[in-house]
């Protein structure tokens, strides 16, 4: 029961990532792409959490922490770059 619910959640999160990917490919401006990248990575952190429980490997939580750090840094740096367009 628990495993089935978790599988359903993983599929829903994958659908969310696909929707963000649609906006990422279509988005008229660069800022739309950055916003969809932000949403996509934050959703992926939740997905990594579910995968951690399903595979019983604690190391994936460290992967999620580093992934979140990198996505935050990426969004900040690209936004500041676009703001003053160096």
């Amino acid at each position, binding site marked *: *029961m*628990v495993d089935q*619910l*978790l599988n*359903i*959640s*993983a599929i*829903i*999160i994958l*659908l*969310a*990532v696909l*929707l*963000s990917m*649609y*906006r990422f490919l279509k988005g008229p*401006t660069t*800022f*739309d792409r*950055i*916003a*969809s990248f*932000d*949403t996509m990575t*934050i*959703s992926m*952190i*939740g997905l990594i*959490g*579910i995968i*951690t*429980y399903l595979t019983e490997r*604690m190391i994936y*939580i*460290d992967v*999620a*922490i580093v992934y*979140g*750090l990198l996505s*935050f840094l990426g*969004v*900040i740096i690209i*936004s*500041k770059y*676009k*703001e*003053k*367009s160096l």
Partner: protein
Amino acid sequence: METLKLIGAIIVLLGSIFLFLGALGLVRMPDLFNRIQAGTKASTLGTMLTLLGIILLNPDWTGKLVILILFVLITNPISSHVLARAAHFRKIKLSDKTIIDQLADDGVEEKDDINNSKE
């Protein structure tokens, strides 16, 4: 113990539904600022609920997951704020439904532009 795991799985499901709604808002909203609103808020609560459910499922991992939840809660508003500020500075077009833009009316950003170009 089994009921606790079931509650955790239901919380994970709830969080994933919030994440899905956030991505749906990202696709449906008409302009950039509304997209940021839908994307940021729903994904913050969605990720927090998902990780909270994992804590209930396996309490041994509480420490690292709590760090991850606090990290998401602190950094997500900051990144959306930086993005919105940069987008408004670069004069991204707002949607036709917008009724007021006080920031452009006050004209504080143009002053910044002039000051920067002097340096």
